[in-house]
């Protein structure tokens, strides 16, 4: 038998939860509009370096993804995967083993936003396992507490640095350059770096994207570097460091926008689910109350009948 008081307490708590999720949705909606506006301003920061990578043939094929439609992108995304799986010949495997890589996971401190953070962590885990990465040559940089929490147990030896306190305020360029400085000062000389972030498409769509980063030596030896004018060492070093900051800034902004949009959707769903539960519980509550009244009536009437 259902106890009336219990139903009442449960109903009350769910109503409170609904209020909270509703408020969170509205808060993230307003943060989202700001993040989206900021993102428009940050897009060239991603476009510039990508264009340069393409022009210097550091990256094969078009890097500018902004025009390609979703289908094309899916295909493109699959290709590198296949490459990694198929093309691991023994000598390449050896080379791959020696290659020093750095993985930058772009997440934030806040949860309650669907699969935004876990998607990134999962992809990094998969890549690490696929490359049979050793802790000495493959390092992780965790931006935001969420990715650190997910990855730190399994990949403790891979951790290089982690950045906290992301996601409370809108990220600025200062944050990005500070991060770039920390990564550079960490003293790990990587051959190849990758930034894992969620690229924002529309309020209901984001996609996990990987942007490569290159150090000075790689840029110097880029296949098409001959086409470029002579650049002295210091300048190139400055340039690559600054480019890292710019890319981090871009990725931060993309992440902020997709995170807020995902949180908005998640909270909207939570509010709807709460409404559904409230409907069911109210029904149960009314029925139970009615049952209690009926039972009491029966008791009174049958008592009165027995006295006759």
């Amino acid at each position, binding site marked *: 038998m259902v106890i009336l008081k219990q139903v009442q307490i449960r109903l009350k708590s769910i109503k409170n939860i609904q209020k909270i999720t509703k408020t969170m949705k509205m808060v993230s909606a307003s943060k989202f509009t700001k993040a989206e506006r900021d993102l*428009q*301003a*940050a*897009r*060239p*920061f991603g*476009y*510039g*370096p990508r*264009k*340069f990578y393409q*022009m210097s043939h550091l990256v094969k094929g078009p890097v500018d993804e902004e025009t390609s439609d979703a289908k094309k992108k899916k295909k493109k995304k699959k290709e590198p995967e296949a490459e990694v799986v198929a093309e691991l010949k023994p000598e390449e495997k050896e080379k791959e083993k020696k290659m020093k890589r750095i993985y930058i996971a772009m997440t934030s401190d806040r949860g309650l936003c669907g699969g935004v953070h876990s998607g990134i962590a999962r992809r990094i885990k998969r890549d690490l396992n696929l490359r049979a990465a050793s802790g000495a040559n493959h390092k992780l940089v965790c931006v935001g507490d969420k990715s650190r929490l997910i990855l730190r147990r399994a990949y403790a030896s891979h951790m290089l640095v982690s950045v906290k306190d992301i996601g409370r305020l809108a990220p*600025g*360029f200062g944050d990005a*350059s500070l991060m770039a400085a920390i990564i550079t000062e960490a003293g790990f000389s990587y051959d190849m770096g990758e930034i894992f972030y969620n690229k924002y498409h529309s309020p209901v769509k984001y996609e996990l994207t990987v942007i490569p980063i290159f150090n000075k030596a790689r840029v110097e030896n880029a296949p*098409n570097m001959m*086409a*470029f*004018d002579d*650049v*002295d060492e*210091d*300048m*190139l070093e*400055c*340039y690559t460091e*600054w*480019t890292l900051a*710019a890319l981090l*800034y871009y990725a931060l902004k993309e992440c902020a926008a997709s995170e807020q949009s995902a949180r908005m959707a998640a909270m909207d769903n939570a509010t709807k689910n709460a409404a559904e539960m409230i409907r069911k519980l109210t029904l149960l509550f009314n029925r139970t109350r009615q049952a209690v009244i009926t039972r009491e009536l029966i008791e009174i009437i049958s008592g009165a009948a027995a006295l006759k």
Partner: protein
Amino acid sequence: MALAFRNGLRTVARRLQVRNYADAAKGDEMALTFAAGNKVFYDKVVVKQVDVPSMSGAFGILPKHVPTLAVLRPGVVSVTENDGKLNKIFVSSGTVTVNDDSSVQVLAEEAHPLENLDRAAAQESLNKAQSEYSSASNDKAKAEAAIAVEVAEEILKAASG
């Protein structure tokens, strides 16, 4: 002085050159992307010329410039738009990339149009930076203060015309 003169000459020479190119072949246009942390100024807009202050000296970029990379130093970037309008924007730091398809990307940390600069505020920040420079204890703080002084000096120079 001599350097400025030479730069001037070079820009004039390049301007003449570009006229030849423009007559000879259509389509060597220069698409400029100019963005800063606070604002996007140009997004793949076709312009005539861009002058940038870089670590290895200021230089002008015209269509078909040899591909190059450079790091910006604090100073004024002037953009000559296709209708001849001159747009002057102050930048604090950043990078310039000229690609071999004649597209130019200027990415700056902070950038503001010249008319938004305030002379008095610049003077004030210069004084503050100078006092920080003289009171800096270690090398790092000293270098940071030196950069602040450089930026403030350049803003002052740009603001006073």
